[in-house]
């Protein structure tokens, strides 16, 4: 039966009484049926595992035997575990340094690409490419080769193979190579910046240039304020993403967060605790602490945004 036919039939019907209520109930049932695949997904893939994880965080669970309830012990251990504190410190530095650098780079390139140059689509794709590759294991492997002892970086810098240093096996530079990899994958925020730049009405620039504003002045007084919602959006997303960074550190360090725990990211330590050291309860507690931290940082971001984000309504 076609929808139009259904409509016609509805019109013919008298005002809703008993039978119509039954109908709306049937409609409601139908809506639940249509929602069922999504709800199933939400339950099976998100809600149930999250609830299970919350419960596991209060247990000692070694994966191989049934979990046993230990109350807050896992959370207490979080405060006494020096390797966890180091992991938090490594991750915080990563977030604090690589996120702003990445935003600066992507904003700068977006502004450059927005100058209406020829072959824009080509450049845009070329600059976006690292982001498509950057999260992958292959690029992390490549990075490991590049910054290794006999790697491309050392060859370019002209170090001999004996005198040279290995960037990834020195605790003072290992984290830097992973930050560089993250900054290099600036494509996603760049595309969003580009879209934002396109949205700024040309009349503001015309008015500004009539008033004799230089291009830098135009950027500072027109572009930047009008772009702040986009900057804010990118900042929130990148901070959340950076707190959960895993793949690059896992591959580049060979899976152990070394040397000397210098690339032991929070999620990497969580993974090692859960899957290698048979301590899934502790890993679950770490995951909930991470959720709390990310939520807190996002809340702070939103609170502070009142003072610097400008909505042009």
């Amino acid at each position, binding site marked *: 039966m076609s929808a139009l036919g259904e409509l016609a039939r509805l019109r013919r019907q008298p005002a809703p009484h008993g039978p119509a209520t039954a109908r709306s109930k049937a409609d409601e049932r139908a809506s639940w049926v249509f929602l069922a695949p999504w709800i*199933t997904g939400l339950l099976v893939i998100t809600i149930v595992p999250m609830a299970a994880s919350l419960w596991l965080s209060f247990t000692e669970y070694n*994966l*191989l035997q049934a979990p046993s309830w230990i109350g807050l012990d896992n959370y207490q251990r979080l405060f006494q575990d020096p390797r966890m504190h180091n992991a938090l410190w490594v991750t915080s530095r990563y977030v604090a340094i690589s996120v702003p650098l990445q935003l600066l780079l992507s904003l700068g390139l977006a502004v450059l690409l927005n100058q209406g140059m020829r072959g824009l689509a080509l450049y845009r794709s070329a600059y976006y490419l690292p982001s498509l590759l950057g999260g992958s294991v292959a690029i992390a492997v490549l990075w490991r080769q590049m910054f290794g002892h006999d790697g491309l970086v050392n060859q370019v810098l002209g170090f001999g193979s004996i005198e040279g240093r290995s960037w990834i096996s*020195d605790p003072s530079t290992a984290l830097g190579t992973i930050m560089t990899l993250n900054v290099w994958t600036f494509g996603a925020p760049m595309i969003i910046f580009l879209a934002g730049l396109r949205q700024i009405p040309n009349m503001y620039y015309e008015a500004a240039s009539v008033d004799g504003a230089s291009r830098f002045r135009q950027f500072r007084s027109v572009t930047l304020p009008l772009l702040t919602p986009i900057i804010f959006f990118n900042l929130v997303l990148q901070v959340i993403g950076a707190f959960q960074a895993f793949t690059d550190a896992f591959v580049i360090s060979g899976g152990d967060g070394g040397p000397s725990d210098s690339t032991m990211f929070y999620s990497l330590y969580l993974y090692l605790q859960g899957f*290698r050291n048979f301590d899934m309860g502790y890993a679950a507690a770490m995951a909930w602490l991470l959720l709390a931290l990310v939520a807190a940082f996002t809340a702070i971001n939103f609170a502070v945004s009142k003072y610097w984000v400008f909505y042009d309504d």
Partner: protein
Amino acid sequence: MSTGKLRPRRWLTHAATAAAASLLLAACGGGSDNAEGDGSITLRVGWYGGDPLHAALEEALDQYQQDNPDVTVEVSRAAFADYFDRLATETAGRSGPDVTRMSMSYFADYAGRSALQPLDDLVGDTIVVDGLDEDVQESGVLNDEYFGVPQSVISHALLIDPELLATLGAEPPSPEWTWDQYAEWAKAIGQANPGFYGSSDMGGQLQAFEVWVRQHGSELFTEDGTGLAFDRSVLEDWWTYWQSMRDEGGAPPADITADSDTFETSVLTQGLAPSTYVFVQQIMFFQALNEHPLELQPMPTTEGGDPGQFLKALDFWSISSTSEHPEEAAELIDYLVNDPQAIQTIGLNLGVPPSQEARDQLDTDPATPEGKAIAYVESLGDDRVGPPPGPWPRGYGELLALFTKLGEDIAFGSTDIGAASEQFFSEADRVLEGF
């Protein structure tokens, strides 16, 4: 008319319910379901290792399937760390492989938590173990139950590159040397040849440290496996020894060692040092990467100390406790360890075979790395090898990684030896859980 309208909805309801149910079933199921009625079964066999081992085992398993047409074998293979990440997840999901290669590093973790099937009823009956060397007979036993069939016999060794030594103008180390003589020799090489070092840095290697501990009169772990059995001073002496090796050119600086954690990047393969610590069968992996012929010799000794090394099986064939076909899995294990054809195919890819019969059958050329490995194992006498230690307790894997990390902390100067040994002892208290 009204039924005509309702029917599609009812159909949709059913379809959606069915879809949801199948999603749930798919999420909960996943176990192997191999009762095919005609008596044929599927066995999953998993192991860790490198490409040569993968090729050899797959060939042996192909032969087995040809001889046993009612058995289909599925394989699951990976490098060591990846394999154990996967095995933990599979075992938690009650879908571990029927037959798995098990390492002593995780043996107590799995066997002590009922993830492996006790083999007492099968060993000696379905699985013949009569010919096993005496030293390895008890290696797969935990709490008086038999959980693992030994794959190989292992001992520690120094791997030497004599040609590199000649280039560096030094004599090979003597098998009789003490650690002090070894250090003197290594430092002399480093000082005479800038950019080269006498020895690899063993400071972060718990398994080399075990030799040192046993030479100093105790085992690594207490008998119940819940704590460390040695004095803190023994550990501090070990780390001080390697600190002085690094300071005086005997061993490479920390960043080179951190970079050398694979066979390909090790200081021996890179030609930076003529001597490194290995387990005996690793001579084959190193030789494949090196043009110079390599030689094995025993670890240095401690003057007036006990024999530090041991002969023991550190890798096993085990059966998951969730296996539906333990009897058939046991038959497969028996084939892998006893069948002359399988012994020939596997060769030394799993290590030196743990029985005289198998070693005689292989009849290796003494000039090959395989022949050297066998000759080395057979040459170790009671002056070198003490009684084998008990199994490594639960938590060993975590402690092994921590030892490496603390070794790096010291070498990079981010902590001192006293603080590191204190941390190692306090973490061991928490991590070690006995058997």
